[in-house]
């Protein structure tokens, strides 16, 4: 039982960060019905910017995270305007190719600028353990990560439900053409979605590498993206809350399955995520909380 609780606690922090990256994927999906394959790399780049701001410019870490999120938001908005908007959103192939191009370009750009040696990320949260049940320890890191995620989801909900731009965003994601007809400026609204997603992604990556067991390197997000995308698909690609819950599920499954199912070695946790993804898509294509698509012929 203690071991079980210990694994649950382990899964919690991973799950929360997967949830944040999944949230970024979902925001972009809601805006442009596109899975942004470059989301992980964008987030990684953002985390590097935060690292540079904190260590080389000497900003306090949370100020650096905030500035990093702002810069990412601007970059996200620019990417949407220059690379995404010129294409027809219903034709997937060019957009997938663009995001794969971004994946390659951003990943290698980070490799050129910061090299591939792993770096220690500054501490964002108090260290040490808050609670101990025998073997199971709940670290302050885990508690703070979960709190951060709760705050982010709360702020996002407020932003989307109580502000004008949030209202416009919800309108555009529910029906692009009608909202355009009712006078909403669709372009800037989608741009806002991309900016939001980039900022959330940067926060997610920063939190992920702030874990004492992780380090920041240009390849850090490649695996995380698959987990996060699986999380987003479990939650239903267009549900914000679903993304967080999906992230938690994936985090838990990953940490519990590896412990209790002996024939799944640790390296196969990625394979487990892919299998879960396939099963969800086969039996519940709209995820747990997503809206089932309606196709008119």
């Amino acid at each position, binding site marked *: 039982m203690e071991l079980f609780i210990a694994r649950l606690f382990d899964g919690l922090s991973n799950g929360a960060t997967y949830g944040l990256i999944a949230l970024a994927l979902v925001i972009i999906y809601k805006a442009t019905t596109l*899975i942004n394959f470059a989301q992980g790399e964008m987030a990684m780049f953002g985390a590097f910017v935060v690292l540079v701001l904190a260590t080389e410019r000497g900003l306090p870490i949370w100020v650096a995270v905030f500035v990093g999120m702002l810069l990412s938001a601007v970059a996200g908005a620019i990417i949407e305007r220059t690379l995404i908007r*010129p294409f027809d959103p219903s034709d997937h192939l060019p957009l997938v190719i663009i995001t794969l191009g971004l994946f390659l370009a*951003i990943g*290698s750009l980070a490799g*050129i600028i910061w090299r591939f040696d792993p770096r220690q990320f500054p501490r964002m949260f108090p260290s040490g353990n808050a609670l101990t049940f025998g073997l199971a320890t709940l670290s302050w890191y885990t508690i703070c990560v979960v709190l951060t995620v709760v705050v982010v989801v709360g702020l996002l909900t407020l932003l989307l439900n109580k502000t004008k731009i949030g209202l416009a965003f919800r309108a555009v994601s529910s029906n692009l053409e009608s909202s355009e007809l009712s006078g909403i400026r669709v372009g800037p609204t989608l741009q806002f979605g991309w900016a939001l997603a980039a900022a959330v992604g940067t926060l997610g990556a920063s939190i992920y590498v702030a874990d004492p067991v992780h380090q920041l390197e240009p390849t850090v997000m*490649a695996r995380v993206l698959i987990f996060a*995308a699986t999380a987003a*698909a479990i939650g239903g690609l267009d549900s914000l809350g679903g993304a967080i819950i999906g992230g938690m599920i994936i985090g838990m499954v990953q940490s519990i399955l590896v412990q209790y199912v002996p024939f799944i070695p640790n390296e196969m946790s990625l*394979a487990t995520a892919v299998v879960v993804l396939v099963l969800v898509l086969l039996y519940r294509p709209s995820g747990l909380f997503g809206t089932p698509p309606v196709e008119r012929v």
Partner: protein
Amino acid sequence: MARFNLVEGTSRYRAYKWGAWSLWIVALLLFAFAVADTAQLTFFDNSYNIGLPRINKSISFMIAILGLQVIVGYTGQLALGQSFFFGTGAYVAAYLVQDQHWPWLATLLVVIPVCFGIGALFGIPALRIKGLYLALVTLGLAAVFPAVVQLDVLDEYTGGAAGKSVDSDLIAPSWLPLDGIANFLQSIPFFGQYFGDGDLTSKEANRIWQYMLFVTLAFVCFWLLGNLVKSRPGRAIRAIRDNETSAAVSGIQLARYKTISFGISSAIGGVGGIVYVAALGFASPGDFTQLLAILFIVGLVVGGVGTLPGAVIGGLAITFIAEWSSSTAEFPGVPERWLQGPTGTLIMGVLLIILTFFLPGGIVSGARRLKAKVVRVVPIPPKGFTPADSAAVQAPTLATVGDNDLESQN
């Protein structure tokens, strides 16, 4: 208007076709002898290798991209995990040749059915998983492959993290007068200097033999797929690409054709894997990552999605962009730091974005547009076609029944 108009079926058209093909074959052969040694180009103090080992590697990529053309280019399914099947083919071939002492060509008999089977198996969920979701799942599949071959249970077959090397080499048969050809080429005045000097070493002879085998294999794949896309199943899969619903309404069995095209694409990917391991003599988990899967997409897009010759250009592009950018030590106007990291990947990423904007049909479509200015192939009118029926619509009819050469001309 094109300078030469050739009507299909006439003797002039046949002469053009045969002439072009023979020129290609002679060029490929001459090329083999010219670069059998480690040929190098020197440019701004950097030397770039174009030797046969690299060409052989790029042929393996060409075949893999060819497989991708079937599923992405012609069936329109976003299945991006070709490196999985490429790796499977490579490992199965390495195991059979190294541990079971099979001849290389015999591995085709196992790799093709195995990869076809796995591909078709993955094609079954893909009947329900569509579009972006399929892209996601298949990229995940590609990411999983290195972990799969390093599983403990497979360790004795795959060599685990250390990879598997294959000692057996493809040895040039003694009846083939490679030395004679080399000597003959060297004796040609003026041009002889480009073909090295003296007899070929056994290593060079083997390389030329491998190259000839791989080119032949690639030709066979191209020929078979060329026929496939022109035949009834080919029209069916293109109909699926253009509109799934309307294809189903016109009586095309979606499940059957999609599964088959998944299988074919994966089988061809496996053949590419055989060529890869036969050319390099080595397969390691780090070779078949998600990055390779994405590089195949780069090759697909650079060459041109939905064009078979695009696979050739794509294979060359992804091999040589990576190779040459890593051997570039200095370049005027570019800081050294930018040349030491993953510059090739950066170039390919940027290329992917630029091509999607400015040349969505890839290099092949650009080349076809140029070619259409010089040579125009006019197809034979279908039977029962009389000019009187269609005098009014003749121009558009010509354009729509023609191949791409004609379309891009209008």
